[in-house]
């Protein structure tokens, strides 16, 4: 097999190196180079679609990196990470296009950091060595910190600092847990660890398992973010430049959910089961709370940010329902949220470029001067609200169905979130795009330009495609989530009866 994952990981870095060599003043050349490398990465990553629907890891590369402690460069994808990698490579060119005119100072640094971020994000999803995972996890932090802090809005420094410190606080605990696991099992290799723990060759006492789970979970929960750890998110989203918001919402949040599914469940099944009711409760609180905040939110970007808190609640709920449908729905919802919320941030960013304001009250009747923008926004809002035939419907439906298998009350409470989502999104659309057009808006707002269409249309196509042909995705997702859930079962059955 060709070293496909190496190519996908290295192409953005090659772009980074190329950008550093380009002359600082030639912004056009810099933008096109960044676009070229992000598209090339996307093209290369499309080969991943040839991955068969199997339960194990594909395209594996496993080489020693450091001898002692044994750290290996071990990467690979399965039915979950495959789609997340594609999500990253799909959205990065869109983020480049979204920053085309929007970023006009320190252009070279901006695109260079964007490409480093891409490598980091891909790395998080393909790393199969816990150490390597941690390295990539931290590597995403630095470029995003700069993207927010340098190119963000007014309170950017505060937001960037908060983002960095929240994530760092969580991730150092994860590092402690990774080291402890290494000390107990003697390896950082995830598949090896998983089988050692499942077969009982390495054992954790319940107290140890709980602490380890907590350390991992906290790092992931901050990233997701799970209520009440979400407070960094509105700040970071609102202050970040458009490309930053897109990637933050679409990909960085998924790193948390992915981590829970990939590491917490298979490695610490008992602790996962034990704490699931509490986690589900927090997820439901997040769903409802996020939606309620959206209803009273005067700032568009903040509204979309809080809608993320709400939507990600579904993902966590699906994962911790421990059902096949719930897990499938959670993974599908991760992708959906990436597409739709990415699109929402993109469109809000385009509005901001025109009207120079994020306040809903400053707009009205935008549909008259910009019918194309309005149409795109409407489709995206409907998708985000879970309209059938569009992508989010499938994910939310699966999650709710899965959760209902376990607890009908949970499902009913979460469904409130779906209703509220339709309310706040359509109300947002109504206030911004319909009604009288104020003079200021009419003079400033123009319709989408070809470059902007190029960024928006792929997202709209994906919303429809993922809404209609969900089978083409779910087949491979199910194969993998089934394995994850089996690991959960295996361990419980290995236990003596009284501890089950």
């Amino acid at each position, binding site marked *: 097999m060709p070293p496909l994952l190496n190519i996908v990981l290295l192409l953005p870095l090659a772009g980074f190196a190329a950008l550093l060599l380009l002359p600082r003043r030639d912004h056009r050349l810099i933008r096109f180079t960044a676009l070229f490398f992000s598209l090339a990465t996307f093209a290369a990553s499309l080969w991943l679609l040839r991955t068969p629907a199997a339960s194990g890891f594909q395209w594996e590369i496993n080489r020693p990196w*450091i*001898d*002692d*402690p044994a750290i290996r460069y071990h990467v690979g994808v399965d039915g979950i990470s495959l789609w997340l990698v594609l999500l990253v490579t799909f959205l990065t060119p869109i983020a480049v296009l979204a920053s085309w005119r929007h970023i006009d100072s*320190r252009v070279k*640094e901006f695109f260079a950091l964007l490409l480093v971020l891409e490598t980091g994000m891909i790395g998080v999803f393909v790393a199969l060595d816990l150490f390597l995972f*941690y*390295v*990539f996890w*931290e*590597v995403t*932090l*630095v470029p995003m*910190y*700069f993207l927010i*802090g*340098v190119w963000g809005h007014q309170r*950017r*420094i505060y937001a*960037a*600092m908060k983002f*960095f*410190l929240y994530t*760092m*606080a969580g991730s*150092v*605990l994860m*590092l*402690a847990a990774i*080291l*402890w696991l*290494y*000390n107990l099992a003697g390896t950082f290799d995830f598949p090896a660890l998983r089988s050692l723990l499942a077969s009982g060759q390495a054992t954790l006492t319940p107290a140890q398992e709980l602490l380890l789970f907590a350390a991992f979970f906290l790092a992931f929960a901050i990233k997701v973010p799970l209520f009440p750890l979400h407070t960094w998110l509105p700040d970071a989203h609102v202050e970040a430049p458009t490309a930053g918001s897109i990637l933050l919402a679409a990909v960085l949040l998924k790193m948390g959910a992915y981590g829970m599914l990939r590491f917490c469940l298979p490695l610490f099944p008992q602790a996962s089961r034990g704490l699931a009711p509490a986690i589900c409760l927090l997820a439901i609180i997040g769903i409802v709370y996020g939606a309620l905040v959206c209803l009273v939110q005067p700032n568009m970007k903040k509204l979309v940010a809080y809608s993320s808190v709400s939507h990600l609640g579904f993902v966590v709920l699906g994962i911790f329902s421990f059902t096949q449908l719930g897990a499938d729905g959670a993974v599908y919802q991760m992708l959906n949220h990436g597409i739709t919320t990415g699109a929402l941030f993109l469109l809000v960013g385009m509005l901001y470029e025109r009207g120079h304001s994020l306040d809903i009250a400053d707009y009205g009747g935008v549909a008259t001067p910009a019918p194309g923008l309005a149409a795109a926004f409407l489709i995206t809002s409907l998708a985000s609200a879970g309209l059938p035939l569009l992508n989010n419907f499938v994910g939310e439906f699966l999650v709710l169905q899965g959760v209902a298998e376990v607890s009908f009350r949970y499902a009913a409470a979460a469904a409130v979130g779906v209703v509220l989502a339709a309310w706040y999104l359509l109300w947002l659309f109504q206030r911004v795009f319909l009604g009288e057009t104020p003079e200021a808006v009419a003079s400033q707002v123009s319709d989408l330009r070809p470059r902007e269409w190029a960024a928006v249309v792929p997202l709209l196509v994906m919303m429809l495609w993922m809404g209609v042909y969900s089978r083409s995705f779910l087949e491979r997702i199910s194969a993998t989530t089934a394995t994850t859930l089996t690991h959960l079962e295996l361990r419980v059955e290995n236990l003596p009866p009284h501890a089950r």
Partner: protein
Amino acid sequence: MPDNAQIVRVLPEVLLSVFGTLLMVLDALTGRRRKGFLGLLALAAIYAAWIGALISYGKPGAAFYGMVAVDGLATFFRVLICAVGFLTVLSSMSYLQRDGLPQGEYYALILFSLAGQGLMAVSTDLILIFLGLEISSISTYILAGFLRQDGRSTESALKYFFLGSFATAFLLYGVALLYGAAGSTRLAAIQSAIAGGQAGGPLLGAAIGLLFVGLAFKVSAAPFQMWTPDVYQGAPSPVAAFLSTGPKAAAFAVFLRVFFTALPDAGPAWRWVLWVSALLSMTIGNLAALRQTNIKRLLAYSSIAHAGYVLVAFAARTPIGAAAAMFYLAAYAFMNIGAFVVVSHLAGRGEQYVEVDDYAGLGARRPILAALLTIFLLSLIGIPLTGGFFGKFYIFRAAIHGELIWLAVLGLLNTAVAAYYYLRVIVVMYMREPQTDVPLDPLPASVAAALLVSAAATFYLGLFPGRVLDFASRSAALLLPR
């Protein structure tokens, strides 16, 4: 009469002393305008000492009746100290010219100090350790006060001298008590006396306590860290860079050798002392650094915190911990010197611009310099792909391996706190508007070289830590008595 093999085992120290003396003589013989070559001579001397360290590693073993021993640990620290000295001299050349400082004695003092530190690394006898420490310290007392016209520098030297003398007195008293308890000053003999039960009780406890106080002062570990910020702030920046890395590394080498070779059986008593001191150093250093506005003070408090991280590795009391400490000191040396070199370059004549706010807009005005400082700061935070990350990683791995899980967790949380103040410098550089009244001199080639070497070493240790760690592990394994 010592034979050739014995001489070879102290070759680096001999070379450094000879060249140091030569420099002083040549300094007197050359005219004011022609002193430029003295720096180059100092560089050549350090390079020769570096080669000497490698040659002497070719003939490992004891010499001078067991007073010194060339082994992995000694060589590791000799090489490290030579690298520190080399970078210090490289970054001092333009600094001395800019501020019109006497060059000959400066370089000579650096060389003597290095000789003392090299001696600390190779000695296996408490008396010789004390001598090395004094040679190193006395030179650095003078170096700290090298800006004679500057009141802060004089204060720095005086403070360093008085408190340093106290500390060495404590150490010497500890040595005396240890001699009283064990009947020898040879580390190996002390170990066998303790293992055999001839030494013990309160006398030994007091001796260990006093030794700890003396060494903790030298590495600026809490609660003996008070002097650090004042001394680093007042000392010329290249000297501060040197103080925070060279003498500190040598003192840690002594720490390792004394506590691992002579006192491994002295029981869990010093484990708790180290535990508490490590936690205090990290916490005090990091919390105090949060409030600093002067970059030199900030780096001084950060160096206290970093001493705390190294002590975490010590507290594990395993060869893995010792190796982690060695690796960390190497990584720390390069990233910290790098940061200080940038500081010393930007400070301008008479060190006028040493506030964090003076760095506003540096990212736009001097992108490469700002990028380099960012790399060093990220390494100090411990972001992956830098040497600082692997250093912390090995240290906390050693701590967890040594069952010090809570210390590791507290230490890791400390690194998250520390991120804040390093990031604040980055924020000022990249996210604040430039202040035009801070003059920026062009980067002299020697400073640029020092920065590039530091950055390259930081990345090397961050990407391929294997070889250095491997050497450290093999050396550390030999420390424990068999």
